[in-house]
């Protein structure tokens, strides 16, 4: 390890910390979206119905094993809760009987289903069911957001990885040039191309591995820091505490990736110079 190696390790660690933080953010946002992307709370709007009809529908819903929780929301309930939550905005509007007429009675159900489509059409076939809102619109929005987020972070990561790739290649180039004479002598006493490349491959892979490990720790420290500082409002706090770090498999995979990146970058450079005839290219080395 010379000074260039330390500097490079530092730069690469910073670069990888950025890469890992973005990956971790993407991972957590994706996990959040995943939850929201599969809405578990559905709304079943009802047609005009008698108390009896409503009760028999409620019974049918409760008997379904895919539905965990059924709550009846009468027109009156709805307006009350709406007024509580959005007091300033909606209160006047909802006093208007003409508007009230458009708000039906409804059931709010909590769903736990593997085949939401089937469940939905089943509920639609029940009597007095006007409409089922299973959150399709939101699902589509989720899909869009999730896709663009993925594309963005993959593009960004590719660029940063390429940067890391060239930084490592640059360092290896320096090492090779510094050891040109040694490589020449090794070739002349019969070292194979692989014998000669090995130390450089190890050098590149180690750079990747060490920087990757440091960046892993740094990202973890950053995560702890964020968890410590941010919980100001209860809502955000909730989101923050649910942030997770990489799993062990992911950590292993990522470190393999950074080591591999270092090894590959070094390999591609060394392959170019170590042809077995390095010495013959240096004409005029005989005093």
């Amino acid at each position, binding site marked *: 390890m010379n000074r260039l190696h330390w500097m490079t390790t530092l730069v690469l660690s910073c670069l990888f910390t950025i890469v890992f933080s973005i990956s971790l953010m993407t991972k957590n946002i994706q996990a959040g979206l995943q939850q929201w992307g599969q809405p578990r709370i559905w709304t079943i709007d009802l047609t005009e119905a008698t108390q009896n009809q409503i009760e028999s529908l409620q019974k049918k819903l409760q008997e379904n094993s895919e539905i965990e929780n059924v709550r009846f929301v009468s027109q009156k309930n709805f307006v009350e809760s709406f007024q509580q939550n959005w007091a300033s905005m909606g209160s006047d509007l909802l006093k208007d009987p003409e508007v009230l007429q458009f708000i039906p009675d409804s059931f709010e159900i909590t769903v736990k289903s593997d085949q939401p489509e089937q469940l939905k059409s089943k509920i639609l076939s029940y009597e007095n069911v006007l409409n089922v809102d299973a959150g399709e619109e939101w699902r589509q929005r989720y899909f869009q957001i999730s896709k663009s987020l993925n594309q963005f972070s993959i593009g960004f990561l590719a660029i940063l990885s390429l940067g890391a790739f060239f930084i490592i290649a640059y360092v290896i180039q320096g090492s090779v040039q510094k050891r040109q*004479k*040694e490589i*020449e*002598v*090794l*070739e*002349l*006493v*019969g*070292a*194979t*191309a692989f*014998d000669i490349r090995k130390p450089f491959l190890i050098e590149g892979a180690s750079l990747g591995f060490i920087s990757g490990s440091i960046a892993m720790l740094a990202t973890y420290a950053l995560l702890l820091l964020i968890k410590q500082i941010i919980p100001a409002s209860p809502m955000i706090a909730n989101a923050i505490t649910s942030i997770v770090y990489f799993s062990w498999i992911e950590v292993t995979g990522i470190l393999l990736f950074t080591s591999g990146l270092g090894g590959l970058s070094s390999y591609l450079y060394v392959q170019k110079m170590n*042809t*077995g*005839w390095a*010495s*013959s290219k240096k*004409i005029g*080395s*005989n*005093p």
Partner: protein
Amino acid sequence: MIHIQHLYKTYPGPVHALRDLNLKIARGEFVFLTGPSGAGKTTLFKMISAYDLATSGKIHVAGFDLNDIKASEVPYFRRKIGVVFQDFKLLPNKTVAENVALPLMILKEEKRFIQKQVTDLLEQVGLSDKADQWPETLSGGEQQRIAIARALIHKPDLLIADEPTGNLDPLLSEEIIDLFERVSKQGTTVVIATHDHGLVQRRNKKVLELRQGEVREIASSELIKNISATLAEGL
């Protein structure tokens, strides 16, 4: 062991270092190669050791066709030969013992075996007490003997030595040539380039003279005459 036909080597310039050179050296032979400075001895050695590529001509060494050798085979060819380079080519960041051990390290021999061989050989070249020093702290003659030990440690089929006694005093020179003769008796083919005509004359060995890119066998007694001829040419 060495078979060369119509070998040409032209350096950019163009400098015609070797011109239509033909040479045959049989397995087990002990040969001195002489010739004035600039005659092409080092160039010839570079061709023989696959250190550099010939411009044209056929060259077979130790069972390898060097015109046609694959890059991946070159290391295995070089393991069969031992070369004492005129400029030694020692590694400055390795100790004397490590430099000598290099060919065996590359062959991935056992540590103990390597140690024994290195100790043995350093004793034969008179460097036992310098094993742990850095080459740069040693004299030219001492460095030369490291290069000699390194060229012999893996018991090569062919030894080529370019001016191996150039930096040695007469007594040491004789000792090194004695060592080469011992190695030769064990089956190694030996080719030594040298300017030291006295040395050549004291041994009853085959002498080849390289002059203007051509090789010719001469009797060692002829050497004196040739020196006069060279001097006359110079005038």
